[in-house]
């Protein structure tokens, strides 16, 4: 509102999304809330590479950046390349990463769900479906171009997020693809998201309330439904 006179180079780091057994008030994913606001940048690291490269980018960025970390990922290890370990390593804000290339269906995910999407892609591969997994990395700016390019290639899309579905990240991605690549879609976009309920504590309900690998696999198969049986028959 100062027309550029005042800038706010600040990074807000914080755990985001569901941890384990922490109930309704400590499990919410705020990605879509923050990312709906012009003026903010919203990053969602998945791997060690992301965490290092994006946090450095966030700190160097002259704008306010919301940096959403998943508590459960703190305890997970990832292989890293020498490049990532190099002190000069940094990642660009606003660029998604294709974690796995594929040709039959695009799966978008961020934060912890990238790992699930990769596992789903593995399971799908065993059934002859080649899934492309996009790690969004940045929810705002959203890398519409990488997403649309991928969908134009695979013609099918599954969005995955841990947050509540309504007005969520998947909804925006779906709409972006409809706006830019409607003619390329061979099947309805499939949305996998947190259940539309406050996070329950009980372990069985909690599991139901967040996406599981099998949900992603099922949705991807649904998306591929029309073509896969044919392929399988061939």
């Amino acid at each position, binding site marked *: 509102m100062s027309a550029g006179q005042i800038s706010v180079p600040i990074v807000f780091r914080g755990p985001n999304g569901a941890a384990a057994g922490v109930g309704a008030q400590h499990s919410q994913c705020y990605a879509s809330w923050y990312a709906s606001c012009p003026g903010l940048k919203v990053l969602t690291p998945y791997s060690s590479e992301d965490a290092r490269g994006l946090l450095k980018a966030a700190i160097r960025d002259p704008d306010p950046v919301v940096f959403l970390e998943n508590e459960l990922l703190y305890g997970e290890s990832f292989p890293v390349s020498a490049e990532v370990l190099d002190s000069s390593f940094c990642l660009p804000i606003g660029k998604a990463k294709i974690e796995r290339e594929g040709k039959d269906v695009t799966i978008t995910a961020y934060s912890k769900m990238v790992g699930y999407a990769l596992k789903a892609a593995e399971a799908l591969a065993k059934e002859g479906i080649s899934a492309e997994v996009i790690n969004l990395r940045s929810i705002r700016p959203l890398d519409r171009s990488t997403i649309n390019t991928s969908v134009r290639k695979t013609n099918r899309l599954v969005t995955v997020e841990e947050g509540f579905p309504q007005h969520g990240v998947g909804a925006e991605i779906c709409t972006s693809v409809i706006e830019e690549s409607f003619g390329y879609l061979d099947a309805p976009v499939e949305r996998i998201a947190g259940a539309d309920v406050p996070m329950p504590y009980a372990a*069985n*309900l909690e599991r139901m*309330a967040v996406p599981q690998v099998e949900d992603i696999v099922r949705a991807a198969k649904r998306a591929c439904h029309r073509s896969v049986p044919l392929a399988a028959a061939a």
Partner: protein
Amino acid sequence: IETSIPFTAHNCDPPSRAVTTSPSELLTFFRDMALMRRMEIAADSLYKAKLIRGFCHLYDGQEAVAVGMEAGITKRDCIITAYRDHCTFLGRGGTLLQVFSELMGRKDGCSKGKGGSMHFYKKENGFYGGHGIVGAQVPLGCGLAFAQKYSKDETVTFALYGDGAANQGQLFEALNIAALWDLPAILVCENNHYGMGTAEWRAAKSPAYYKRGDYVPGLKVDGMDVLAVKQACKFAKEHALKNGPLILEMDTYRYHGHSMSDPGSTYRTRDEISGVRQERDPIERVRKLLLTHDIAAEKELKDIEKEARKEVDEAIAKAKESPMPDPSDLFTNVYVKGLGVESFGADRKEVRATLP
């Protein structure tokens, strides 16, 4: 009986140090606190056995606050607290089975296993939770007090919060309105001297929490002395009904770490903990009173403790039998009136429910 130490008052006359009690009341105090202590220690074990997950904030050390408060008020008065709520729930008439079932996420829990450690409630006895957002229960408590005043109930609300929470802005906002409208709200700061790993003096410029209401009167109470707590709460209730809000600072201590991931010994010395245990333990204080006044013999008290242990063990055994919630419970209790709308699971084409 005299309270251990005098009350320190801010902007009001302190109540008398002389507290009236009876042998049976003292025995009840002992029994209730021993049961709470046992319950919390059992919860600790269940957590370590991975039967309790996520957050679990234990109250051992602070039992005199929950027990003394109940002795000073009635179940028509309301209590609302933060996440360290197991013992408060028990004090309000909750059962051990409800506690352990909830902690293990079972159907017989007070919130059907869907709430977990931080979400205990007993509305019919005026217990409004169990709140995980630090400080948020205080404005809610003032809202309860508003309702009490509005409906001319002649009852009051005790809103409990910690020394860490004492610096939250919403307390000051709520207190101002409560004072302005003379609401029968008593803000109870359970000062256990740490907010997670942060000592009070690192979080507050003025850790004299009973004075932090500024224009609102306050009273500093030995929160390890169940009789002092009782006396203070009686006094506070009378005061609040006549004059509006009051702050009670309960000087207390938590033996356990903040939650289960906190060993509780990195930001304070083991000596500090054992010093409190030896010199100020609320249960031991009552034990001594019972012994010196010849109300009970050592053995009798040991039996009470054994009985507590048995009760706890039985409740745990029963809670372990309690089933997990039904999968269909994923969608219940989100709305009172679901309006027949559809709600969705993670894969909406696989799991969806019509809300009643």
